[in-house]
């Protein structure tokens, strides 16, 4: 265990503090010595453990999982849980920074990265949800919602008082809310906007942002009644400001990965980076998070300066549609070994109105400032998403697109054929589209995927010349 924690960037002092806590959590989750050995092997295979920034990032994720599991043991009186709720990490930071005993958790990404990506032990969580109302088979329910239900049903998460989700892109999670309320007795709430934008309105999303902000404010009021803790606007502003450096630091890392040739870091890390940035940290913990990003950035810059890459210079540049796999890095690893460089996901982009501030309709309302997600690619209508994807392909010099559409998300999956046609007609670059679940490791079928990728690579070779392999 000492060796494992050292690998994850914990120094001697931290190891002394964290060892008993992490041991307790491993005991509760049934993680054995053999699992730890598996995790070490997976970390070395899929992640760049030579980099201190990567080691510490994985350590932070493990610590976040530990903190979550032990919340009740360590004094939390009320636990608020969020899933599929962009922007709610700010609310989480506001609560966690100001309340002594109300804790806000946003655990899905941490648990998929740790239990899945690190330990390769995620399937039982999904199977638990399938045993209940998110059955497997042709209905193809979303693995993200299964993660939510499975973690709660298995008792991996501490007892939850309030759970919140959003219906921005989803019907499954809001419906699971109601069933969880009935079956588990958890107070469950949903925040929504409405997906009724016409293409002629693009990039305006003000109807959606305003509705979403009102819903989020209403949820804050509900939390006051449920937990007795009042969240005021000053706390929200402070949380927004506190979290800003996380986004900026992550952007620096992402930019150096995206813009450097040869690529300085494998795409297997993209999911972990996003999970690391998303946790609802206390404001006081954020400088340490930013420091990890900055360490990684400096290490990557050093590689760039020396011309060192993890792929040959000129490796084909790939845009993926939907994020990288949350619970299983094998696919990104397979792509990497085939010499292909995933430089970004369309989920990283937007119409630009969120970043420029043009989408904010009420600068005096922190909830309006937070609720800018409808400008992001996933929050667009089909036409809006196509506009952004085509623009990103042109700007980043993309050689090919992989649309591994998350089948449980009807909102995303249904766009596939139209996007494929638009990319083919407008850009003439290859696009490989196939169905998978972004949270389910069982989606990975190596022989099937390798065959598809070989064909895809061949199409790019035809279009562009020889592709180098690792």
């Amino acid at each position, binding site marked *: 265990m000492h060796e494992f924690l050292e690998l994850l960037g914990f120094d001697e002092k931290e190891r002394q503090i964290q060892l008993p806590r992490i041991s307790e959590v491993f005991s509760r989750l049934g993680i054995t010595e053999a699992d730890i050995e598996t995790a070490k092997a997976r970390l070395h295979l899929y992640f760049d453990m030579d980099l201190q920034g990567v080691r510490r990032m994985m350590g932070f994720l493990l610590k976040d999982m530990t903190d979550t599991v032990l919340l009740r043991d360590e004094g939390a009186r009320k636990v608020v849980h969020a899933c599929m709720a962009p922007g709610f990490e700010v609310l989480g930071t506001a609560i966690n920074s100001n309340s002594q005993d109300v804790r806000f958790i946003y655990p899905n990404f941490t648990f998929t990265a740790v239990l899945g990506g690190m330990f390769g032990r995620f399937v039982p969580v999904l199977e638990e949800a399938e045993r209940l109302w998110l059955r497997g088979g*042709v209905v193809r329910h979303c693995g993200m919602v299964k993660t939510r239900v499975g973690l709660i049903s298995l008792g991996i998460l501490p007892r939850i008082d309030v759970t919140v989700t959003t219906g921005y892109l989803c019907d499954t999670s809001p419906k699971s809310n109601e069933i969880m309320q009935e079956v588990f007795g958890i107070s469950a709430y949903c925040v929504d906007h409405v997906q009724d934008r016409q293409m002629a309105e693009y990039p305006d999303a003000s109807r959606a942002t305003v509705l979403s902000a009102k819903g989020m404010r209403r949820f804050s009021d509900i939390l006051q009644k449920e937990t007795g803790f009042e969240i005021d606007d000053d706390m929200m502003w402070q949380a927004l400001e506190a979290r800003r450096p996380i986004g900026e630091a992550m952007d620096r890392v992402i930019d150096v990965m995206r813009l450097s040739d040869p690529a300085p870091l494998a795409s297997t890390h993209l999911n972990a980076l996003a999970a690391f940035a998303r946790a609802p940290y206390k404001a006081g913990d954020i400088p340490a998070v930013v420091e990890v990003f900055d360490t990684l950035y400096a290490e990557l810059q050093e590689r760039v300066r020396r011309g060192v890459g993890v792929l040959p210079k000129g490796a084909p540049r790939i845009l993926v549609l939907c994020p990288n796999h949350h619970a299983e890095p094998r696919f990104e690893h397979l792509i990497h070994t085939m010499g292909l460089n995933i430089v970004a996901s369309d989920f990283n982009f937007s119409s630009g109105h969120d970043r420029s501030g043009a989408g904010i309709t009420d600068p005096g309302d922190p909830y309006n400032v937070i609720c800018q997600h409808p400008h992001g690619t996933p929050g667009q209508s089909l036409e809006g998403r196509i506009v952004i994807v085509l623009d990103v392909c042109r700007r980043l010099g993309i050689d090919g697109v992989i649309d591994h559409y998350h089948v449980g998300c009807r909102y995303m999956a*249904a766009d596939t054929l139209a996007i494929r046609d638009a990319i083919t007609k407008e850009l003439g670059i290859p696009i490989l589209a196939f*169905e998978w679940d972004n949270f389910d490791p069982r989606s990975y079928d190596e022989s099937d995927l390798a065959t598809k990728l070989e064909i895809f690579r061949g199409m790019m070779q035809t279009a562009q010349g020889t592709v180098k392999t690792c």
Partner: protein
Amino acid sequence: MIIPELDSLIEARLRTLAEARAGGTKVVGYLPGGYVPDELIYASGAIPLCLIHGGEARSAEEALSLVPNVICPFARAQIGETLLRENPFYTSLDLVVVPTTCQHFKQVGDVWEHQGMVDVFKLGVPYDCQDDYEVEYYRGRLSELKKTLEHLTGNSITDDRLTEAIDVYNRLRRLLKTLSLARRDQQPAISALDFVRLNHFSMYADPVMMGDALEALCSSTPAVPPLPAKRPRVMLAGPALGFGDYDIINLITEAGADVVIEEIFEGIRDYRHVVDGSGDPLGRLAWSYLHDKKPAAFVRGATRKKIDFVLDLIKEFDVHGVLWYQLLCCELYDEESYLFEKVLRERGIPMLVVESDYHNLAVGPMKTRLEAFVEILQGGPVDA
């Protein structure tokens, strides 16, 4: 068959549609579910058509060139009908109103817009109605729709015209409700298939003529013998029942039970609510359509209310079992089925979940399942 002339009425409706269009009248289609007020379209002078065809594998498959098969077959059928260009109800449209009631419908609107097949108005329906701002949002979207319709038709939708249209549709809903309630009788005079077909026809028909026909029907003695007594009485529940998607009703009837009440989201006109009150008619529409009715499955917090409503209907219509007819990849109803089955089981009410993708419903295994279900409703298999 209680109204043998329904087919000829459909043909007549198609003729009048063609004539009306030739004369410059606009035709406005909309997707079902009870969140697009026909009243607004009718008051603009346009002809409202609820797009309700479903049940055929061919049209659902046709859409697979544009959307993957995780979109439900009813939603795909709407795209497929516009692609096939064979169904006059789908080729006569000047505008389609798409309510954002589920991800599948949202995608139908996006695809229609992307392909430029037909002009689309996306009608945002808030998923909740706890607060005034949600009703106000919906009212705002209705107001935008009103402007769009006025621009399309060149007619002004005055309060008087809208009030008149509300009266027309209130009458239609009341008459359908009267017919439906008549099925509380142990020997109902109208079969489920007839009721569903009447309901579907009301979505295509001129509402005044349909009202007259229903009034005549309600006041007349049925010309057909009542259904046989002592057969199990079944509720048909599910997300959608398209025009033509009748195999499930025929199969359960052949298996020996009768559907006496439906709790269907898309495909049965929501005849249980009326647009009440006085004053601003647009505000009355918004309140009535969003707030003042039984919530559909997509509405947040609807599940418990739906369960209570279904339990009330079971009691009111003396239902012995629930036939849950869901469409493939409909995540909302698939999730709900777990809870409904649990709640009904606790009350000793059997529920059978049947899933359709519009392929071969009327084949052996399904018949066997339905026969077994009816046997259970009758007190269990003989050899049990």
